[in-house]
């Protein structure tokens, strides 16, 4: 039997540490905690966790800085915890290599879902890529560049397809505006959020049952977009 996944939580709030340790241990994860940035970096290097949950507001150093230092040597998934309304910090952390974020206060199902996605994604990175994603009536074949909805072929423009493909190959994870624009349109268009807004609306119109209340292509306000599959 596989060893339970090991999660390192770096947060300076004792209450949050206590709650996360209790809940995650209950869900059969192995949990280590650190309340300072330096301590967290040391523990990450010595205990090699499978996933790190990182608070952005640490007493001794900026969470974004911790993120940068971790990314110097490890690909281990990082989920950032932040308080409400710090979109700038979230985006900075994501652009510096964090995999996902959660805003405090958060629901525990939300956290567990993000943890599962991050672990799955890191497992996928190490194995062979999955080229076919089927969720609900939607079927996306990344190797054949084909998208079908309820068995019917959906016609997409080149940018629409590239946008969808990028989101789908990172399914479950939040992608920042900048990262999507750089990847799909190129670095020179990294600030043209309006492209993203318009193409995302077109994609939703073609793929979503109700484009105003999307099911697969979700907006992360002030941060970016996320593709989610039906569980």
């Amino acid at each position: 039997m596989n060893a339970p996944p090991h999660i390192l939580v770096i947060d300076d709030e004792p209450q949050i540490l206590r709650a996360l340790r209790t809940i995650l241990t209950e869900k059969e994860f192995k949990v280590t905690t650190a309340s300072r940035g330096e301590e967290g970096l040391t523990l990450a290097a010595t205990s090699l966790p499978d996933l790190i949950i990182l608070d952005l507001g640490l007493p001794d150093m900026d969470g974004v800085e911790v993120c940068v230092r971790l990314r110097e040597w490890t690909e281990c998934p990082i989920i950032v915890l932040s308080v409400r309304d710090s979109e700038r910090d979230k985006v900075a952390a994501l652009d510096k290599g964090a995999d996902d974020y959660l805003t405090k206060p958060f629901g525990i199902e939300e956290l567990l879902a993000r943890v599962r996605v991050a672990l799955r994604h890191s497992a996928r990175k190490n194995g062979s890529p999955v080229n076919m994603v089927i969720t609900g009536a939607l079927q996306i074949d990344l190797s054949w560049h084909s998208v079908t909805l309820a068995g019917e072929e959906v016609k997409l423009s080149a940018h629409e397809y590239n946008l969808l493909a990028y989101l789908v190959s990172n399914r479950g994870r939040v992608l920042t505006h900048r990262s999507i624009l750089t990847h799909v349109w190129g670095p020179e268009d990294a600030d043209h959020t309006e492209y993203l807004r318009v193409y995302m609306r077109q994609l939703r119109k073609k793929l979503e049952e109700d484009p105003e209340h999307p099911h697969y292509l979700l907006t992360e306000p002030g941060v970016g977009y996320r593709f989610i599959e039906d569980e």
Partner: protein
Amino acid sequence: MANMNTSSFYRKISGYVLAVTLVAATTIILYFLRDTLDKTLVALLYMLSVGLITNLWGLGPGIIAALSSFLSLNYFFIIPFYTFTVHQPIDLVILMVFLIVSMVISQLVGSARLGMAKAKAREWDATQLYELSTILVGLHNELVICQVLADHIQTTFQGECIELEIGITQPQTLILPANSSTPDRLPELRLPIQAAHGPLGEIRLWRLTPVISSIEKRLLQTFASQGALVLERERLAQIESRTRILEESDKLKTAILSSDSHELRTPLATIKASISSLRSNEVNWDSNARTELIALIEDESDHLELVVGNLLDMSRLEAGALQPRRDWNILSEIVGEVLVRMRRQTSDHKIETDIPDDLPLVPVDYVQMIQVFTNLLSNSIKYSPPNSVIRIKAIEQDDMTLQVRISNQGPHVPKEDLERIFDKFYRITAADRVTGTGLGLSICKGIIEAHDGKIWAENQPGNFVFNFTLPFYLNGSPPPQLPIEMDQV
């Protein structure tokens, strides 16, 4: 210094030389006309040139002209010619009258001329001062005030170097001309900038030539006191605005404290009660009551989050830190997001949206606009009856302006309260009947105004409507039009 003195000395001498020359010229002309002219007329003509000379070159040359005219008149025109003796008593009278009148004339004209020069100098002073005070009046920044003051001193006095030092605890110095350093010697003039309650700084002027006159010194003194007045006014204004902000935030704190028992403790009490009953074994683990209690805890936590969030936003708004990060957005995407988030709160109402599909992109802060719609919707839900309709409509007023209307079937608001509902903590209904901090609408107002838009409420037959406008232009640019690709994969 020496060279300046000699030049003014030459100017003086040349006045005397010219005076004598003009008298000589007059003498020559009159000499040739001697036979045809009466000697009294000759005397009058001499007087004319004395007046002219005094007017042109001042009192000293005027007196010299009067004396030399007197002598010439006597020598060339009074019989016997070419002597200074006088035979006829009448001629003596003419000569004496001539001398007295021409002296009086030169005195009068000379002093009038001096008075004129003084008046001109005073006028120049007044103009300089007027210009300085006109510029200073509109200024609000201490450093800018000093810059203007220094510039003005420099243009007026043409000094070698000017140094302006302000601030006693943290002195800041300003040196003109820019990028130069002060000369090694002590300044020729040092003047304190003196305000009512102590010195504010000092003006130092280096100028060897021309030597700073007492008039200039007085003018500079006036400049300094003018500067002191403006700096003092600026300090008082700063203190006043700081006091006002403190007062405002004090009011805010008081209001938060007075509403916290209700707003924060009610949900806490509910959560505490629910949890303790879940912990005790009084509630059957499989009963509906358990589900109900858990739902209650979640609802109340959400409500607490909203209240705390609004308080935070309000304090940010107070601190001026709620600057929108505007970029191009699709309004229907924002509204859609809000409706997804508020699914539970809106479940008792029917929400209708009417947003044209071809509405241009709007330059807004996505997150702040979510806040605006959330607050307006939650207000609409709170005050309108269950199962009634809430309608969100977007209208393109013109090329420049978007208007959004959120109407509900709630009761009308008295006309005099329509504007005040956007004030902090303003509530029409008694605080304990409706929940909320009374901050939601004032946050909306703060956000919309930070977007250069307007927000207002109106009563319509059968409806109560919130309206707000947003500009379509961002920094002067219209919404971008994107080429729609036709190529297919």
